[in-house]
């Protein structure tokens, strides 16, 4: 187990690398970004203004240092199209994305943990096969197809839920399922294999020998141990929900940072693109590290080692 300080330095180094990569993405724009954004027939004054606002009139190294100075003070630049600070745009859209991600996460936990337990307890029999089939289908169904399928079934055929947007009540359900299903599939597999792995351990035999019922063994001995790797996976998924939300938000016209990103790409609003990508990657790194810390804190073996 590494010390907290080491882990913190480690995280900072990764965040530094991530932001450098996102900064360097600008270099990939083919040709002159000013031409790309404004078109070839733009006025010279407009071109010069755009050049200055993108910082293209200065050397790359200098822009890079500026980028970090701005980043440290929470400044992600200014949108070329909306003329608003990128950080403000993200903050306006973030609540909708977080709401969607939280609902999807709830679905992941509600499906995956019971299903994984069921599969492990009935290994090789039909509940297990059902869970495995669910996991395989969930992993294989692309969310931009699942979304329209759910709309077709629940909104069009049955009329239970609204087709898109986030205004009507119940509009959260289909996007949350769309976003959460593949992660529920991965977590189901993880929960199952993690429970099966500890099944052969001596402490479970001891617990059974002293006369504990199966439910008590599960709740008091199996689950707390089997949950550790599952928590790490869940933490990883919490962050990737934000990335998965990009496609889901487009499918359901959900007004979060994912649709902000795609709109910005269409309008070639590069600072917004960089800002959103950076925000999602940072969130992903941080949730991963927090989940690792949480799992370590829960694990009694780690306490003893310290």
């Amino acid at each position, binding site marked *: 187990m590494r010390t907290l300080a080491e882990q913190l330095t480690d995280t900072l180094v990764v965040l530094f690398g991530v932001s450098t990569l996102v900064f360097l993405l600008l270099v990939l724009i083919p040709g002159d970004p000013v031409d790309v954004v404004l078109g070839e027939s733009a006025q010279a004054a407009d071109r010069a203004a755009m050049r200055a606002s993108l910082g293209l009139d200065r050397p790359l190294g200098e822009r890079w240092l500026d980028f970090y100075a701005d980043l440290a003070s929470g400044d992600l630049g200014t949108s070329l199209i909306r003329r608003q600070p990128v950080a403000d745009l993200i903050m306006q859209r973030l609540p909708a994305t977080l709401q969607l991600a939280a609902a999807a996460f709830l679905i992941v936990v509600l499906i995956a943990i019971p299903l994984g337990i069921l599969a492990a307890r009935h290994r090789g029999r039909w509940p297990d096969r059902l869970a495995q089939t669910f996991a395989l289908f969930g992993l294989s169904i692309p969310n*931009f197809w699942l979304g*329209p399928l759910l709309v077709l079934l629940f909104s*069009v055929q049955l009329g239970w839920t609204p087709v898109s947007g986030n205004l009507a009540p119940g509009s959260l359900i289909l996007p949350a399922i769309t976003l959460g299903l593949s992660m529920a599939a991965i977590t189901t597999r993880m929960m199952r294999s993690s429970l099966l792995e500890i099944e052969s351990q001596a402490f479970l035999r001891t617990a059974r020998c002293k006369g504990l019922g199966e439910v008590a063994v599960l709740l008091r001995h199996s689950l707390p141990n089997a949950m550790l790797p599952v928590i790490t996976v869940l933490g990883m998924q919490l962050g990737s929900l934000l*990335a998965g939300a990009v496609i889901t938000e487009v499918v359901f016209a959900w007004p979060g940072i994912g649709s902000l990103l*795609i709109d910005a*790409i269409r309008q070639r609003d590069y600072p917004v693109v960089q800002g959103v990508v950076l925000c*999602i*990657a940072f969130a992903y790194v941080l949730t991963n590290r927090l989940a690792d810390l949480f799992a370590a804190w829960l694990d009694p073996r780690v306490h003893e080692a310290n």
Partner: protein
Amino acid sequence: MRVSAIILGIWVIMALGGNLGSLEPNRVVLEAIFTPPSATHWLGADELGRPVFDRLLAGARVSLLVAVVSVTLSATIGIAVGLIAGYFGGLTDRLISRLIEVFLAFPGMLLAIAMAAMIGPGLDNVIIALSAMGWVGYARLVRVQVLALRQRDHVLAATALGRTAPAIMRQHLLPLVMAPVWVEASFGLAGAVVAEAGLSFLGLGIQPPDASWGSMIRDGVRYLLVAPHLVLAPGGALFLVVLAANLFGDALRDRLDVTSHSRP
């Protein structure tokens, strides 16, 4: 394994066999707009009266091409980087490991979306974006194994005999690390097919009028109520190919008896 091999075989035949027939994926027939599937129009026609079946075959070709090329590129780069990091160790390994960590900090398709946003849409750029995202998995996989293998006797013997580093990597390390790479590649194939379709669905991949399963779904969603077959056909094809590639990967993993790091 047999079922998945059959589905993948059909995919390849759909993609390559399209050359033989007289495909007209871009022919606009206004009288045929939104024709439902029938004996003459196998999968019906789309909002411009174009035959959905022909477009499905054209889309199969795009997805096969993108998947095979990007997986090959990703694996080649990733294996090379992983061999170098694992074999040389030390500072080289630390730098490469950092780089891998940075690339792994972009969840899902985020890096491919960001790259496609900058370099623009199109077939070549999709392949570039997917390879830039894909090499990391192979590099991590190969690096870990080489670290464990490089103190083996046969490697030490080869070093003592004065074999050069590239020769040792190619002849004494590469063959031993390939089993999990094949498993990773078959999951990678599923990932690349979904990612290409996803980028095209977002408008960042294959551009109209060319057909891709992703852009067919994107266009079809607008007419979901009138003509659901426009979404069901390409999505069904996509789902089956991805399912087959995942099944194939699972079967391969069991057969080669390797533990995959990317999937529980």
